[in-house]
């Protein structure tokens, strides 16, 4: 089979933007799934929110639904519950999901909707030219906070673990192989899969060096089915940023229960 995952759309991310690495990792993951007979290309649906991240649907020659800012998650659940044989992947941003539509984030996790949510977390509103999001460090000087943001960031991994997500992972856009691996695991997982992708915005908040020094992969012995261990891990201080799968368990999915 000749799998063409590219469209004619011109890529309009800033040259060097790690979003391109996410795109590459995803294409590789899909290629691998298709080659392995685990996925028919027509059964893949890619959705996105609005932001730099959201441009990705234009660059993927697969079924797609470019949704509204903050609303990709319910749209994904809609797709999956209408046709459970589809593999539903959503790309979203930190403003998109942690600000505008965070209600859906919590509830999709709670109901264990069988969808895969990949957050391009650049700790910034990028497409609107640089304002602080819920993951931006306090004190950040952006367009809407020129004297420094006054809000503490939160920890989306912890929020997910508290909300019932059955797959919680983190990866770093710069590590294409690692990102591909996590994406694969997420897509194969039955239930709500949350992947936080650390994606430095090289234009408005360039954290490439910061993270390159700090990220590390969980080692294989990390217990994936222990909620308390996962919570402790994601709350761990010490200036390091763990990557890998923090938590993965099986529970009945929303769509299974709905279509029962």
């Amino acid at each position, binding site marked *: 089979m000749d799998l063409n995952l590219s469209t004619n759309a011109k890529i309009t991310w800033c040259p060097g933007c790690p979003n391109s690495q996410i795109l590459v990792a995803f294409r590789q993951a899909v290629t691998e799934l298709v080659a392995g007979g685990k996925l028919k290309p027509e059964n*893949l649906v890619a959705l996105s929110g609005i932001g730099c991240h959201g441009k990705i649907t*234009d660059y993927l020659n697969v079924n797609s639904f*470019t949704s509204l800012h903050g609303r990709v998650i*319910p749209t994904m659940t*809609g797709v999956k*519950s209408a*046709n459970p044989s589809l593999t539903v992947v959503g790309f979203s941003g930190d403003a998109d999901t942690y600000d505008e539509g965070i209600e859906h984030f919590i509830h999709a996790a709670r109901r264990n909707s069988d969808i895969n949510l990949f957050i391009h977390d650049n700790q910034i509103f990028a497409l609107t030219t640089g304002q602080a999001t819920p993951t931006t460090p306090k004190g950040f000087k952006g367009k809407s906070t020129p004297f420094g943001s006054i809000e503490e960031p939160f920890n989306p991994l912890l929020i997910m673990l508290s909300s019932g997500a059955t797959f919680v992972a983190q990866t770093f856009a710069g590590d294409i192989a690692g990102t591909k691996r996590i994406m694969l695991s997420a897509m194969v997982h039955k239930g709500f899969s949350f992947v936080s992708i650390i994606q430095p915005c090289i234009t408005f908040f360039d954290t490439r060096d910061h993270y390159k020094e700090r990220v590390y992969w969980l080692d294989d012995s990390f217990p994936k089915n222990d909620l308390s261990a996962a919570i402790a891990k994601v709350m761990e201080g010490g200036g390091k940023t763990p990557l890998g799968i923090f938590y993965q368990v099986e529970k009945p999915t929303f769509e299974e229960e709905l279509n029962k």
Partner: protein
Amino acid sequence: MAKQIKPIMTVGIGGAAGDGIREAGSNLGILLNDVGLKTHFSFKYPSLIRGGHNYSRLSFSKEKIFYDYKKLDVLIALNEESIKRHLGELNKNAIVFAENFDDEDKKALGENAISLPLTEFITNIKAPSITRSSVALGALCYLLDLPLGNMTKIFNEIFRAKSPETNILLAEMGYKHLEKLNIKHSNLIAHELINSPTAEFIDGNTAVARGLVAAGLNTYVSYPMTPSSSILHFLASQERNFKIKVIHPENEISSINMALGMAYAGERVAVGTAGGGFALMQEAFSLAGMAEVPLVVAVSQRHAPATGVPTHSSQSDLRFVLHAGHGEFPRIVIAPGDPEESFRAGADALNLAWKYQLPAIVLLDKHVSENMTTSTINPKSVMIEKGKILISVDSSYKRYALSKDGVSPLAFPGTPNAVVKFDSYEHDEGGITTEEIPTIKAMQEKRFAKYASLAKEFKNFETVKTYGDPKSKNVIVFWGSTKTVLLEAAKYFKKTVKILQILWLEPFDVASVSKNLKGAKKIINIESNHNGQLAGLIREKTGIEVTNSILRYDSAPFDPLELAETLNKLI
């Protein structure tokens, strides 16, 4: 009009929330249908769960009855307040059932005050307080010569899951109590049992839900909000029966966005809410327009703005739905006036949404949604219009292929070779985001071409309806639930009039409306809103100005006799 009116009787049932007042009324309506009487039933209630004043009112007759009357022939008062409130509304010879009457009431009512030992009966058999109404219904059967056996049948039907015996027993006790007293109403309407009645006693919300199901609904998504909630409750209860899915998500924004995802994946979906919930759906409604997603939204109006008066009615959201969603895109807005039209509107909206790949609104209000009336609903009359669906394609498939009628063939994800791209940005034929001026223009025109296609369909639908004398120079114009009270009022008109109902508010059938209004000497517009929104719309679309507007914006319903009086003065 002004012809001989067949006898009409009216029964009022009052009590507190939690007394089962609505259920008593609707059970009575079903019973009346079983004996071939036509009924209109309205239910008034405040926004609370226990206490307050709930009030069911049913008028019935051998001929079609469009609305219920204020003046009562029977009052069933399940609490003291109900007597006081309605004492002034009794017709001559009206009978009042209650547990106790104070001296004042007794004096006013004389032998028409009939005490029913409700508490005694239910205490005897250890039944809960809510079953008191069954005693009263039993007594009513004797009073009005209605077949108690059918009441039993109805209880068996309705309480199937929850053991009907108690209610049946209590109805019998009420019946026998009256039999012992040997009291019959003095104005009985003759009737006879019908074996299998073709008509049914139904409310607008149930009818619209059944219309959707008849047109192939797969999934209904809704967050509860009065007065739309009974669509949700009815469809949820029938999930297995109708083989549909019903989802109640975290809020209205989630509801409509889920629905868009479902339609994308090939399901026929509807969402339902009230004005305030629809306010939250505006952005996604606009997305349905841009991405050309087939979607039905049932919007039931209540007194607004904001939280307003949740259980009171209004027609104040006409312009709001006509212009809902930022930007411009074609939509359909149909406003039925009664359950039969609601059924039709539900079915047509879903079919047209799919035929034209656009959002369609069924605009209801508390009255259409909740009033019940004897209606004929025929699901078999509905054909499912699937629209331009492709089940196999080659890889050149383009979701937004330009086409003369504005409708592009639609494939669903999962179709081999197809790459189906929906986009909330302006896009090219393939569904890829564009900022190119000629493409933007072409896409805007493609979407609006649907209106031209729809205009050709006007003749296939009742975009407008007329009643009365088609040649009269006096025209009354209205939309939505005004239908019922107005057609009842029309029985009392002194002059002939033409009555024009506008069912399709968008697209607006300019030619038909103009034709019906042109040459009129007087045009009287009736609406339950402050601004006379229909009058404005008519003027915008046809240039014709109405002569008078009768506007009611206090959230109370019109009364047929008062309305007739007002109109008789104006015409």
